[in-house]
């Protein structure tokens, strides 16, 4: 897929909670097609301490308005600087980057997002819904504050929630959700994105139930376009770049 570099205009910077915000960006030309799981490399030009671009999954796309959005968690100087952008500011993006999720073998699929890892699941649930699949979306977080905009997924599938402290949904980790003791066998695919330990747990559970599982990795990146080889992940076929050959990988191929 052809990659682009464009100056987007910030149309809205939506502060969802203290920690999470969604930034809506207007493309100066027609948006190219963007696949679920793809990401953008964002130039942070309003932070004195951020040098490299920062990768973020593409959260939502509105082809009619020529807009895309990013869902971001404040974790360091770069993301905090992005949270300060205002309507009318400019943001330079390299996009769309990386591969995408593959379609499930059967009707039902489980989409799991941990914290801000939920971001790529919005486009995926939309696509699956459009194509006639039945996605269930399981959102996990440490507390209810980490369950971000769960209502966005409602139109496309059923939404389930877990939190470590039980402040929203079921208490426990995503893999302890009752879905896994119940209808898990109905899923013909599991898709997940989130913190490392969660990804490992999901991969293990998927393997136990023999369900194909794809996860989206968040390896640190320098270029995002396959030029530096910094973002590699070990697979059974050797080192693969997360930015070009990923970020979505079949868990059976990974050395987790």
């Amino acid at each position, binding site marked *: 897929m052809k990659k682009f570099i464009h100056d987007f205009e910030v149309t809205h910077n939506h502060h969802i909670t203290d920690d999470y915000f969604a930034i809506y960006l207007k493309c100066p030309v027609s948006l190219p097609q963007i696949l679920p799981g793809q990401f953008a490399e964002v130039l942070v030009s309003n932070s004195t301490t951020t040098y490299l671009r920062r990768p973020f999954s593409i959260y939502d796309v509105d082809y009619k308005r020529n807009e895309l959005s990013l869902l971001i968690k404040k974790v360091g100087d770069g993301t905090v600087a992005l949270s300060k952008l205002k309507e009318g500011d400019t943001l330079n993006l390299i996009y769309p980057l990386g591969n995408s999720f593959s379609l499930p073998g059967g009707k039902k699929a489980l989409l799991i997002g941990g914290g801000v890892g939920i971001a790529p699941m919005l486009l995926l649930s939309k696509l699956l819904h459009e194509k006639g699949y039945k996605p269930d979306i399981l959102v996990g977080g440490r507390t209810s504050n980490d369950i971000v905009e769960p209502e966005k997924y409602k139109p496309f599938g059923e939404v389930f929630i877990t939190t470590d402290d039980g402040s929203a949904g079921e208490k426990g980790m995503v893999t302890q959700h009752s879905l896994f003791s119940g209808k898990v066998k109905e899923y013909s695919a599991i898709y997940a994105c989130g913190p490392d330990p969660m990804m490992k747990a999901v991969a293990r559970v998927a393997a136990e139930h023999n369900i194909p599982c794809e996860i989206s990795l968040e390896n640190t990146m*320098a270029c995002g376009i396959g030029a530096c080889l910094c973002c590699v992940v070990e697979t059974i076929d*050797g080192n693969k770049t997360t930015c070009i050959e990923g970020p979505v990988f079949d868990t059976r191929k990974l050395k987790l």
Partner: protein
Amino acid sequence: MLDLSVNVHKLLLKNPVMSASGTFGYGIEFDDFIDVNRLGGILTKACTSKNRDGNRYPRMAETPAGMLNSVGLQNKGVDYFINTIYPKIKHYDTHIIVNVSDSTVEGYMEVAEKLNQLDKITGIELNISCPNVKEGGMAFGTSCPMAGAVTKAVREVYDKTMIVKLSPNVTNIAEIAKAVEDEGADSVSVINTLLGMAIDAEKRRPILSTITGGLSGPAVKPIALRMVWQVSKAIKIPVIGLGGISNATDAIEFLLAGATAIQVGTANFVDPQVCIKILDGIEEYCNRHGVQDVKELIGALES
């Protein structure tokens, strides 16, 4: 008409702007963003005698105005390069120079000898300065006898333009430059990365799997510029300058300090179009300053 061409030994570059090894893939990665043919040359990522997996992830850490990397020469080896990559890049209408690395003198020789056969590879850059491999690598570049020895050995099997890439992790870089000049290098490129380290204070662990890695980006520019200046005063063969170059002003500073051509590395990650912007900026500078031939700028620092 402004003449932007420069000569690096036998290579006539259409302009002094090249991409640095390991930061530009094989050029192909940048086709979506720029017309790679406009560059003076491309330095490919390192090529070794055998397949190398490189170091374990994590391989990079951001640092103030720069980054550390410890990629560790990941590549599929010279035979794969010749059979699979070369056919995909030989159409480029620019100099393609292969960055040659290995752990032994014999390894360097093997790669150079094989590349000597490829028409469209008009030169090699001997990487005797990689800080990210256990054996060889930087060790070759930090002592005059070893730098001289590998240069001499490869010179015997390689006819075309041979550039030697120097390590900045030394007390006296001019001495090393003289040693490789004496043993037949046609040009030197200055500098490779500086050995650095990053720590995750919260986890109390090094960030890189290799603990230390190579520092690059704007942070190193003042050091690179100083070394280019020192080296270009010490030797007669052309110097290729690099280290932190991010815009046309930076590039011109390197030319003034004595570089015949320049390479752009880490800046490609921040802006994949930066090489072309630098090229256009050099042209604009020449026009504004009434410079008709970019060669007038080389070593033209007044002091």
